[in-house]
């Protein structure tokens, strides 16, 4: 019988590289966002919140889209690989946290520019609704049942929940909103932004995306180990129950004799 080995490392060269690049990008965002970039003509220093607010919002959208794609892959694949389900779950966990950070940073930015922390504005309301939906998704993942049951019910919810993203994104165009419209992805190609501001914003988006990738890779591995432990515990429980049944049967036969 082969001896089992227990390597305590979860990181791989790829995740280490992604992690290191994330750290460098984050350092750039802090230095660029707080020191290097100039004030905005209209918003003054408050514009510095943008270098964090926009990337966290982007990562939250990306995370929920990854959750939907991984869920679709689980449903459509013949093998129903649990890896897809775990990527979906890990991505949703990270997305919920980034969405909450987006709402918090937006709320503080709103206090400076609009004079209030919260308004029942279309963008803010739909974003809060999106957050609550994915908290519900995570709650459903935590319900009991087999791994297949968890994967199937959460995949269906993920495919429905992702339909909210266009609603959130286009809410500023569909309804009258306090929230400003897209500055960089406006569609006309005319970006009215200073070079250093645009560079810092893009580095922020790339850096936060790499952080997201690192977190999903590691969370997916943590979930894989949790699933493996759950299956091992289930095997042990089934073996114990089988042994108990065998002992009871033997005792009954002995009693009859």
């Amino acid at each position: 019988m082969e001896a089992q080995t227990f390597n305590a490392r979860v990181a791989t060269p790829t995740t280490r590289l992604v992690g290191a690049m994330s750290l460098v990008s984050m350092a750039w965002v802090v230095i660029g966002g707080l020191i290097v970039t100039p004030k905005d003509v209209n918003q003054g220093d408050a514009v510095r919140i943008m270098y964090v607010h926009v990337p966290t919002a982007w990562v939250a959208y990306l995370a929920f889209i990854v959750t939907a794609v991984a869920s679709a892959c689980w449903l459509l694949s013949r093998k129903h690989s649990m890896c897809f389900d775990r990527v979906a779950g890990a991505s949703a966990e990270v997305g919920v946290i980034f969405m909450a950070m987006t709402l918090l940073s937006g709320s503080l930015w709103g206090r400076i520019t609009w004079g209030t922390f919260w308004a029942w504005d279309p963008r803010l309301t739909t974003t809060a609704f999106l957050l609550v939906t994915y908290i519900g998704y995570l709650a459903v993942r935590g319900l009991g049942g087999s791994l297949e049951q968890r994967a199937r019910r959460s995949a269906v919810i993920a495919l429905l929940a992702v339909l909210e993203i266009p609603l959130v994104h286009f809410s500023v165009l569909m309804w009258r909103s306090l929230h400003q419209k897209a500055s960089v992805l406006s569609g006309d190609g005319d970006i009215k932004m200073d070079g250093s501001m645009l560079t810092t914003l893009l580095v922020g988006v790339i850096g936060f995306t790499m952080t997201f990738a690192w977190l999903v890779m590691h969370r997916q591995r943590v979930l894989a180990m949790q699933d493996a432990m759950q299956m091992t515990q289930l095997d042990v429980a089934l073996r114990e129950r089988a042994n108990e049944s065998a002992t009871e049967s033997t005792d009954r036969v002995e009693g009859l004799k």
Partner: protein
Amino acid sequence: MDHLGFIAAVYGVTFAVITALVVRTVLQGRELASKVADKDKPWT
């Protein structure tokens, strides 16, 4: 810098939350990895 408190709060909370998430993930991963056999860890 104007509105320094708000700006510092946004940067502070964001990076503190990300750091906490990373640390939690690493610690949880190490703890589980010492209990789960390598055959269940395809990345090792």
